[in-house]
């Protein structure tokens, strides 16, 4: 990029005017580049900033997007200048070194830090409420997910070749059923402790599991307590207390 110095009085004021008038800041850059005798390099960012600050103070109703545009324009111009600097990087090594230690490299590059501070655009993030159609489609997805899950369980069962009993039955129902069975058996046998094996219909893996899991749930809920003297020994079930349950 050539750094042709052209006297362009009031160029910055013109640019600012363009920033305010043109809706998009790209247009501003095109405008700057398009100015016949103006090289973007020649834009005095300090002056641009000053004009902007003056403008900001003079208007009552400041469009929040204008400062955002100013930041972008300044950023792009800075980019142009940074490129220019890098061309001379080798010769200006000391210069760069010095700059690195500077507290305010922005100022060093001709950008007023205030410009940046002005630059936050205040945008709303409007949220809308969902529509009925969306509610319906959410239900469809929820049901689909469920179907896919069931499908997976079916496949898994097939693979394991284990007939997991009453998989879909609500655990609440299963535990309630089991508790009734325990109660019934205790009454029938006139015992306050029964053996786990007595409530398993058939000593097969799936039948054992069918009762074992609700037993764990009942124990966890504090409805029963179970004891086992040693591994693989009998499991004895007793009602936890004569609770005021039900």
């Amino acid at each position, binding site marked *: 990029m050539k750094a042709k110095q052209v006297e362009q009085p009031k160029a910055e004021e013109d640019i600012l005017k363009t920033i305010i008038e043109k809706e998009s800041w790209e247009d501003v850059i095109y405008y700057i580049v398009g100015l016949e005798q103006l090289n973007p390099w020649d834009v005095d960012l300090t002056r641009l900033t000053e004009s902007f600050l003056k403008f900001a103070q003079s208007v009552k109703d400041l469009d929040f997007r204008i400062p955002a545009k100013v930041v972008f324009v300044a950023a792009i111009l800075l980019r142009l200048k940074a490129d220019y600097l890098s061309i001379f990087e080798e010769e200006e090594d000391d210069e760069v070194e010095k700059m690195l230690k500077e507290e305010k490299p922005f100022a060093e590059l001709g950008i007023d830090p205030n410009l940046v501070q002005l630059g936050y655009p*205040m945008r*709303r*993030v*409007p*949220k*809308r*409420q*969902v*529509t*009925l*159609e*969306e*509610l*319906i489609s*959410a*239900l*469809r*997805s*929820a*049901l689909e*997910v*469920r179907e896919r899950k069931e499908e997976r369980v079916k496949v898994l069962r097939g693979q394991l070749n284990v007939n997991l009993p009453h998989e879909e039955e*609500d*655990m*609440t129902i299963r535990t309630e059923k089991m508790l009734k069975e325990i109660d019934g058996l205790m009454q029938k046998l006139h015992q306050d402790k029964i053996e786990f094996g007595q409530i398993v219909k058939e000593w097969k893996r799936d039948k054992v599991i069918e009762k074992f899991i609700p037993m764990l749930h009942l124990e966890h*809920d504090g409805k029963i307590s179970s004891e086992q003297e040693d591994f693989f020994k009998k499991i004895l079930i007793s009602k936890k207390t004569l609770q005021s349950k039900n």
Partner: protein
Amino acid sequence: MNKKALLESALFVSDKPLSLAKLADITGLPQDEIKPLLEKIKVEHEKDEKGMDLVETPEGYEFRIKPQYRDKIVKLAPMADLSEGLLRTLALAVALKPPVKQSSIVRYQGNKAYSYIEQLEKKGLIKTEKFSRTKVIKLTEEFEKYFGKSVDELKRILEVKA
């Protein structure tokens, strides 16, 4: 500076519901001065010719697009105020015919449902009650207001369409 206008501008710009305390903090007005002003804004927006409602939720006050206009403006705003997960929980609660056991929803949605249910309760769209060992979910008036339809009507629509 007009106090009502200030409240309105705060409600307009915020992307979250604003509590009375927050509104007091922003505006510097005492809460008991804010309440009647909000009431006034609310009544004004109930008119047919207004597109938004001012709604009070457990999280605070917010402007909401009236239900009958949402379909049309849906393309303009990509951000909905309920996530897909929350929406599924809600849809399930309707479809499974409230009052619904929490466990029934968990069966469909898995353990994430617990957090969704909590969030929906905070938003005031559902309420939960304990029945012995289980939680039961009910839909609220707020829910009906949100969709502009009664729970019964919604159930019917979901049955037909889903």
